[in-house]
C-alpha cells in the first residue's frame, strides 16, 4: 500500500470538480427554501440545464454561452413550478416531483441528437506567476472559471441574506409569509424570483456536469445529484457557507474512496460510499432533537402555501 502515490494536489482538484455541480444546485435551492418554498425538482432542473447548456455550447462553440443558456433554460423550467405552486396553489412536494420527471423526459427528448458529441472545452484560469507556484498554484489558481464562480456565488448569497435589506425581506417571507404580506411585501413575486434563482443555479450545476466534469451528453446523466443537493441544504442547516462544506465533503468522500481503491488500499467501499448520507441523517437527528435550534434554522413557512386571503 502506497499512500504517497495519491497526489494531494490532483485529489483536491478532482474533488472540487466533483463537488461543484451539487454546490451550485444546493446554493440555489437554499435561496428558494429561505423564501419558504420547497422545490424538489432540483434533479429535473439540473438535467434540463445540462442539455440546454450542452446544446448552446456545441452550437455556438462557447462554454460561457452554454452556461448562460443552462441558467436561462432551467430558470424557465422552474417558472413552470412557480406558476403551479404560487398562482395555482398546487402542492409543492407533488409539483416538485413532477418537475423532476418532466425535466428528465424533456432533456432526453432535446438531447436525442446530441449524444456522442464533444463539447468545446472550458478555459482554465492561468495567472502568470500565481498559477505556476508549486502546490499552491494548482490547488488555488488553476481551475476552470466555474469553480471560482460557484464559491463567489456562495459569498454573494451569504452577503445578500445576511446584510442586505432585500435579503432580510426574502427571509421574512420564508419565516412568516402572512406577516410579510401584512407589511406590504409582495410574497408571491419574491418567491417566484427565488424559485427562478434556484432554477438558474441548478441549471448551471447541470451544465457543469455535461460541459466540464464528464464532458458529454448522456440521458439521465445527473444520476441523483439533484437529490444530494437537496440533502446538502438540510445538512448545511440553511447556512450558505456550510453548503460549501457539505458539497466538498460529499465530493471529497467520493473521490477519496475511488482514489484509495485505485491505489489498492483495502477499505470497505460500501460503508465509505454511504458515509455522506449517514452524516446527513445524523445531522438531521441532532437538529430535530433540539427544537429551539431547529426552529431557528429551518424557514418557518417552508413548504406552506400562501394565499393573500388567509
Amino acid at each position, binding site marked *: 500500500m502506497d499512500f504517497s502515490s495519491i497526489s494531494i494536489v490532483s485529489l483536491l482538484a478532482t474533488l472540487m470538480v466533483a463537488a461543484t455541480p451539487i454546490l451550485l444546485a444546493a446554493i440555489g435551492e437554499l435561496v428558494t427554501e429561505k423564501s419558504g418554498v420547497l422545490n424538489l425538482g432540483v434533479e429535473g432542473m439540473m438535467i434540463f440545464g445540462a442539455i440546454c447548456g450542452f446544446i448552446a455550447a456545441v452550437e455556438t462553440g462557447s462554454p460561457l454561452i452554454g452556461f448562460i443558456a443552462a441558467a436561462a433554460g432551467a430558470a424557465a423550467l422552474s417558472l413552470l413550478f412557480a406558476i403551479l405552486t404560487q398562482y395555482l396553489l398546487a402542492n409543492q412536494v407533488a409539483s416538485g416531483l413532477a418537475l423532476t420527471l418532466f425535466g428528465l423526459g424533456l432533456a432526453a427528448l432535446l438531447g436525442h441528437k446530441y449524444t456522442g458529441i464533444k463539447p468545446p472545452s472550458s478555459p482554465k484560469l492561468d495567472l502568470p506567476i500565481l498559477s505556476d507556484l508549486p502546490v499552491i498554484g494548482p490547488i488555488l489558481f488553476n481551475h476552470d472559471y466555474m469553480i471560482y464562480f460557484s464559491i463567489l456565488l456562495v459569498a454573494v448569497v451569504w452577503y445578500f441574506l445576511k446584510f442586505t435589506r432585500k435579503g432580510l425581506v426574502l427571509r421574512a417571507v420564508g419565516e412568516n409569509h402572512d406577516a410579510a404580506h401584512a407589511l406590504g411585501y409582495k410574497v408571491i413575486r419574491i418567491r417566484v424570483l427565488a424559485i427562478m434563482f434556484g432554477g438558474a443555479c441548478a441549471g448551471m450545476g447541470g451544465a457543469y456536469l455535461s460541459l466540464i466534469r464528464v464532458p458529454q451528453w448522456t440521458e439521465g*446523466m445527473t444520476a441523483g445529484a439533484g437529490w444530494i443537493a437537496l440533502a446538502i441544504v438540510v445538512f448545511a442547516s440553511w447556512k450558505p457557507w456550510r453548503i460549501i462544506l457539505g458539497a466538498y465533503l460529499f465530493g471529497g468522500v*467520493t473521490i477519496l474512496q475511488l482514489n484509495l481503491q485505485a491505489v489498492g488500499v*483495502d477499505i470497505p467501499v460500501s460503508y465509505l460510499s454511504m458515509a455522506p448520507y449517514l452524516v446527513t441523517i445524523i445531522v438531521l437527528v441532532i437538529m430535530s432533537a433540539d427544537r429551539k435550534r431547529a426552529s431557528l434554522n429551518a424557514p418557518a413557512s417552508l413548504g406552506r402555501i400562501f394565499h393573500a386571503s388567509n
Partner: protein
Amino acid sequence: MKLLKTLMAGAALVVGLGGMAHAQDKTKIGFVYVGPVGDFGWSYEHDQGRKAVEDAFGDKVETTFVESVPEGADSERVMTQMALSGAKLIFTTSFGYMDPTINVAKKFPNVKFEHATGYKQADNVSTYSARFYEGRSVIGHIAGNMTESNTIGYIASFPIPEVIRGINASYLAAKAVNPDVKMKIVWVYTWFDPGKEADAATALIEQGADIIMQHTDSPAAMTIAEEKGILAFGQASDMKQFGPNARLSSIIDNWAPYYIERTQAVIDGTWKSGNTWAGIKDGMVEIGEFSDKIPADVKASATALKDGIAAGTIHSFTGPINKQDGSPWLAEGETADDGTLATMNFYVEGIEGEIPQ
C-alpha cells in the same frame, strides 16, 4: 385544481382502456431496463433488441418498456404493473432484478419471465446471459499488448460473479502476453452514473493506467480517456463516437436473435423455462472493429483468439490457473465448468486487492 384532477383521471382512464383493447389481439411484451435507453451502453443494446422484435413481428406484437428502474422493490412494482396490463412475456434486464422477478413470477404463473444475467429459474422464469468473459479475453489480450505503463485500469460496478469473471478473464489474457501487467480495480457500486464513472477513470489514470476497461453502462470513461489521450474499450455498445482516438475495440451485446426466438416461442406456445448462456460463437457477444492503432500482429493474434473461442478450441479459463491465495483451481489443460463460472467469487492469482464483500 379540481378540474385538472378530473381531466387527468379521465386521461388515465382513456389510456388504460386503449391499452386493454389492444391486448386482445397482440402479444404484449414488456422490457425492464436499469438505465435510460439512451445510455449508449447496456440498456441501449437491450432496447435495440426490443426494436428488432418489433421489426420482426410487426403487428403481431406490442412492446412496452420502462427505463431507469432501480433494482429492488421498485422493479417489482414495475413488473407487476406490466403483468397486470396484459404482458405475456417480460424481459428483466439487470442482475439486481433477480429476486423481484422470481417474486412477481409466482403471482403470475401464466406470464413468462426472462431474467438477464441471473441464476434463479422457475417454471415461468428463464435466465439468459452472454459469455461476456469471452469478449473480455479478446480485449484483455489487446490491452496486454498495447499498455506501455503495464497498468490497466478497470472500472467495476458490483462484486457479482459476472463482473468478477470479466476481471479474471481480461487479466488472464493480458498476463498471457505481458507478464508484467498489473490491473488496478475501482468499484463504483453503480451501473450508471456518468459523473462517478468519469471520476473513477480519472483516479485510475492518476495511478498510471494507460488503458481503461469498464463494466459500467455509460460512455463517460471513454470520454475521459479521449480527453486525457489514453486508450479504452467500448462496453456493451461500440461507443466509437465518444472516443474516436481512444477506442481500441469493443464488446458489443447483441440480444436481438434471442429476443426474437423467445417471442416466437411465446406466440407458438412452445416457451419452456431454461438457461441460455451464449457467447461469441452464437453472436450474442460481438467484438467491435479493431482500431488502426492496434499493430497488425496484435490484430492477427486477437482475431485468432476470437476465432478460437468461437470454434471452441480455446477457452478463456484454461489451466493451469491458481486462485488469488495461491491454491490451485484448474490443472494443466483443464477448463472451467459453467457452474464454477456462474458463481465465481474469487480473483485469480496475480490480481491485487480484495473483492469487496
